[in-house]
């Protein structure tokens, strides 16, 4: 992975700065607390407010990811190249996942084999059945 050519030109890059041990430990503590936040959200709320727990846990995960990137990966102290190398990948990754999301509805409505989700499951998923669209559900069901 590493090559002797590292020494060229940009090789003498100055460490613009980095955190202190104290900072790292504080970030570590924050990450652990956030992990427990996720965990207890699950324990306390998962039975009653599923979608709420999903939102909380994803938000917590994003904060954790940000902490890791900013402090452990030193992005906080890097020059503006950090945007060039992180934002496109982030956008593309989120875009790919968003682009797949319409398939959830498609899949929910056209499970091959004729099984439809139980009403309970639909409520659990926050899925509201639109009345008067039954014909749509038969598309592609003939696998």
């Amino acid at each position, binding site marked *: 992975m590493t090559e002797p050519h590292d020494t060229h030109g940009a090789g003498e890059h100055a460490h613009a700065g980095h955190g202190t041990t104290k900072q790292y430990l504080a970030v570590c503590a924050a*990450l652990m607390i956030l992990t427990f936040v996720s965990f207890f959200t*699950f324990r306390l709320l998962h039975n009653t407010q599923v979608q709420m727990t999903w939102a909380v846990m994803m938000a917590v995960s994003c904060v954790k990811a940000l902490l890791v990137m900013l402090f452990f*990966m030193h992005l906080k102290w890097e020059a503006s190249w950090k945007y060039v190398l992180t934002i496109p990948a982030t956008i593309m990754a989120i875009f790919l996942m968003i682009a797949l999301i319409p398939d*959830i509805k498609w899949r929910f409505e056209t*499970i091959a084999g004729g099984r*439809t989700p139980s009403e309970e499951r639909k409520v659990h998923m926050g899925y509201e059945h639109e009345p008067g669209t039954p014909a749509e559900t038969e598309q592609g069901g003939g696998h």
Partner: protein
Amino acid sequence: MTDPHGHGQIKLQYQPALPIPNGKLFLWLFLSTEIMFFAALIGVYIVIRFGAPDWPGPSKMHLVELIGAANTLVLILSSVTVVLALDAAQKDNASLARLWIAATFLLGGLFLGIKVFEYKSKFSHGIYPALPHSRMYEKPDVYFASAVRERLRVLYARIDADRAEIASKKTNLLAGPQTEDVQRQIKDLDDRDKVLADKKAEYEQAVGPVAGDANASAHALMELSKRIYPVHDEHEKNAEGEAEHESIGLNDKYPELKLPFVVTGGNMWATTYFTMTGFHALHVLAGLVAFVLLLFKRLDRTRAGIVENVGLYWHFVDLVWIFLFPLLYLF
């Protein structure tokens, strides 16, 4: 031709666009490709999971959230140790850097160890993908019923074969001289035969008549599936939010039965769980290999770049787990 190596080569100068070493740029670009790889895995998981008519909760799949949380903590700690290793290397403190790298290696190893333990507990319950068909069935249908029959046929045939062998041994012994020793052996055989017969009777009693009945009703099959693998619906939890675990399935009671069982959505759960954690574990493994290679080097200031790059990779592995943990254990 001024080059001592005789390549006729001169040292060329460049105009780099970014103020970072090539290795670091490479690593960030590589991480971009890795982000897309895991984005595909997670995107597929989201579609499969949230579009599924049914999805088993963690307790149904013997997934312990606390172990997942513990593993998260292990990875977070290892991220700290690797960043401290970089700090030490930049301060030219090679021995301290090596110490931190060794600590990171151990924590990564611990993570993998816990992962292996988790996998084993799934495997022992018959939860894994398998060709041509895993033991897990989506619904108690005719295919499930015939799989149970087939498994019981194999089991009973084995018991019957053992009993037939015992019987033939006994006949041989009865034909010979009836010494005291032989008498004792015959009694032994009788005992073993009785144990086997009892076992078979117990199985038949436990599994019930449905299994042998090719025309069993849907309701009877449902009852059978519940006897084999009692499903705790994730909504049937008591007030404290604890799943009720008191009902024990046949497969737990008689581990040697290994009957097919029904978990709705279980196959897709296994598919995604093993793939995502598996690819993550492979990345952890690659990180461990990198740490071992680092341990053989003097990690002074000149090697800080390498430590930094390996560290960036390791933080990425941590990042992936930060998203996988809630998605797989807590959703």
